[in-house]
């Protein structure tokens, strides 16, 4: 299918220069590449800039209320597992007001494809800090800087038992499309953290990796089955070192020809290494003033993708199994089992 088939007739109203434009195009490309017909796809969103996305996709769409997209998407998918369901959400919609639904859709492993647009700011309400804004971040609602510790989405997702986590960047179209396609192919709750720039209220929030000059040094694109190598000259690799006293594992940067360089296994059920990969470079977002270890790159691509039974399948399977054995299948058969008297 063609990306144009997934484009709706609506004028795209994201601000000029907003990272959401790029994700919107990537979604249309990814959906075309996946090839599921438009009427079999439902895109559910909450409230926020990113939640406008359903209007621009020529599928079934539902732009709902703040934070509840996850619960509504869970209802769509569980009642109709044959429909491909996407959820569009932001760092506020997903991690603040919708936090409960977010962790529970992950815990249940509902087969949803969730795009979590992370610009570390509330854009649509014009510039308040979000649960992913760095500690000390100055915004309209934190004029003296925030005092709270932010979420690292990767850690939250893995902590909730996530089976799929990918991270991508608005300016990296190929990686974004790859991540979205992988999210759809994965059966289960697939979380794609889309790092997007808010050109109005938080411009340059991801400059450390978005900047073309620095990206190769500051990020690594993880690919399943491939060595973890990065750098402008692809001269660096990642390895694990275990502290001999505390046994705490730590990722270190080694020369790319070092035999210790790791090969990425997104399908490893144990999340320990995925968590370490997801946390790389995140200390700089945890505290705006912190001394950061600049050496570790931010991981992009599919960090984790493991198979597990999905909620929607399990719920439907249980009903099928009960019905196969059931003696009563209709209302009249049910009422026939009652002890009654005749008048």
């Amino acid at each position, binding site marked *: 299918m063609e990306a144009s088939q997934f484009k709706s007739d609506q004028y795209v109203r994201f601000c000029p220069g907003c990272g959401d434009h790029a994700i919107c195009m990537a979604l249309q490309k990814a959906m075309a590449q996946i090839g599921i017909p438009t*009427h*079999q796809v*439902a895109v559910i969103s909450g409230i926020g800039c990113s939640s406008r996305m359903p209007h621009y996709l*020529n599928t079934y769409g539902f732009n709902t209320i703040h934070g509840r997209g996850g619960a509504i998407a869970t209802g769509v998918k569980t009642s*109709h597992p044959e429909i491909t369901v996407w959820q569009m959400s932001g760092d506020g919609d997903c991690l603040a007001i919708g936090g409960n639904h977010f962790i*529970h859709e992950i815990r249940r492993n509902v087969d949803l494809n969730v795009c979590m647009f992370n610009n570390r700011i509330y854009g649509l309400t014009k510039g308040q800090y979000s649960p992913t804004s760095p500690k000390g971040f100055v915004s309209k609602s934190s004029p003296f800087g925030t005092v709270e510790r932010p979420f690292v989405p990767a850690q939250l997702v893995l902590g909730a038992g996530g089976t799929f986590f990918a991270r991508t960047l608005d300016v990296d179209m190929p990686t974004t499309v790859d991540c979205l396609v992988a999210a759809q192919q994965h059966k289960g709750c697939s979380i794609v953290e889309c790092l997007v720039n808010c050109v109005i209220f938080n411009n340059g929030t991801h400059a450390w990796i978005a900047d073309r000059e620095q990206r190769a040094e500051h990020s690594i694109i993880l690919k399943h089955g491939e060595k973890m190598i990065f750098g402008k000259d692809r001269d660096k690799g990642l390895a694990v070192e275990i502290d001999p006293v505390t046994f705490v594992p730590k990722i270190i940067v080694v020369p790319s020809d070092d035999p210790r360089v790791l090969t990425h296994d997104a399908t490893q059920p144990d999340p320990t290494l995925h968590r370490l990969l997801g946390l790389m470079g995140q200390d700089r977002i945890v505290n705006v003033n912190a001394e950061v270890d600049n050496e570790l790159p931010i991981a992009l691509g599919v960090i984790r993708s493991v198979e597990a039974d999905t909620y929607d399948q399990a719920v439907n399977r249980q*009903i099928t199994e009960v019905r196969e054995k059931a003696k009563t*299948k209709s209302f009249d058969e049910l009422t026939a089992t*009652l*002890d009654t008297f005749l008048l």
Partner: protein
Amino acid sequence: MQLTGNMFAQLAAELGHEISTLPDFPAEIRAPQGTLGGVSGFQVELGSDVYTPGDKADVIVAMNAAALKVCTLGSHFNHPQAHFDDEFALYHRHAIVIVDTDALTDKDLEKALYHTDNPFTELGIPESVQIVPVPLTSLTKEALKDSGMDNKAVLKCRNMFALGLIYWLFDEPMEKAIHLLEEKFKKKPALIAPNTKVIVDGYNYGQNLALNTTQIRLEELDAANKQPGRYTSIAGNKATAWGLIAAAQKAGKHLFLGSYPITPATDILHELAARKDMNVMAIQAEDEIAGVCTAIGAAFAGDLACTTTSGPGLSLKSEAIGLAVMAELPLVIVDVQRGGPSTGLPTKTEQTDLMQALYGRNGECPAVVIAASSSANCFDFAYMACKIALENMTPVILLTDTYLANGTGLWRVPTLEELPAIHPQSVPEELKGHFNPALRDERGVRYWAFPGMEGYEHRNIGLERDAEKGTISTNPENHEHMVLARKHKIEQIANSIPELKVIKSQISNHKSKMSETLLVGWGSTEGHLHAAANALGCDLAQFNYICPLPRNTREVLSQYKRIVVCELNTGQFATYLRAQFPELPIEQYNEIKGQPFAVERIVNHVKK
């Protein structure tokens, strides 16, 4: 006690008596036994022409000293000097009071805060009350001495001895009683034999020792007044669940329930979770909001979607119900009302969520509100809630309450065929390829297309939409137009619901002032108001359809010179009626005690 009460009521119903029950229990799961706060009661009225669980009992079974005190002093049980009083006692002056004398030890009396060692004198129980002392505990122990059961298990059977005694007192046949017991304990077969033995011993105790009392013969149900058919007893929550199941099958839709446990609505979730054989998908969501939101998702995807809750949960669901109003999706919200506000009285009954159901949302947000008026007709109104929602693309709030939900009544079992047809809204073929979610039929109801339907892809929204294109619109005229379109859609439903029928007084006294008086109620008070109207000789209008009201409401009400709206709140329905019919002479009578009305108090008030 609840099990014993239910078994007695169910047996009576299966033997062809009308029943009405009122379970009354503390909010704590295991409230301290023997204390005044821990008394758990079950009230039942049986016979013919049964409208309520009754004001005052003819027979009381007090399992301990605390129960005896609570039954005798009613709501005054905490007053240290209180005596039997005709107004507050839960039984009347000529009642039979069966007491377990083994549970009147010094320790029991102390726990129930007696000051003397003679509870009967201390409570001032009139001599006309017939006290039947029975050593229930020791008789039960005696009955089970060879059973090999431990003391704790034996004591649990004490209620069954009392039940056996009651079966004798009401002259119920034991074969049927034992069959019922076997059904109840189907999953715990080891308990069938000992409980049967205790019930039979209780029955024989009454018969052989010829208790110093006469057996009571129940009046047979008046078959002439009843529609022929199969009858059984049913609790309100179960009836609600089955009404939803029947509607889904009639409409040819999957039934989806998104719910979160909350007293007193949880039994609906339990029942629907167990009914996978009926193809019900019941989801226990992570919170109340997710309960309604998963249901909205299922409705968006084309299902008959429901959520069940009580007042606090309805508060949490408000914003999402607004979404369903705005997105014009069918949705059934069952609110089993309880005492409020906040956590309030979780296990008690009240009608205090009416205003919340009507208006508790942001913006101009009309939804349909209907109310069941008996435990059995929870079935009918759950069914109608689904029918209205599916045919009119709107949320429907069904109000029941603790009294209806936990109480049981006699239910005529319908067949699917005889239930009214349901025609879920659909979409005309010719809109394929140029569908949008603002398109409406001639009634003003928008068309329904959902994922999976090729050629009807569209974006639904909680934002205001353009009346023609269905896309986001902030145009001022369009907004006003849409507000009125949503209002009109609800109002036109009055064309398809039954008209208001007055229950005419059976006493024809044209000279009496009462012939010009109309009692008005809504929802669960129907039984009490019916009995009160009979006693007063006045007419009764009981509302089940509240928003919209039946078309003929003004016409009916304006025929009376005095209208007394009786509700278990401070006057919410009276206020609603006054707003719509300012010319009518509307009075109100209210009680907010967490209990159903007492018929006598209504009668006394209206007579004044």
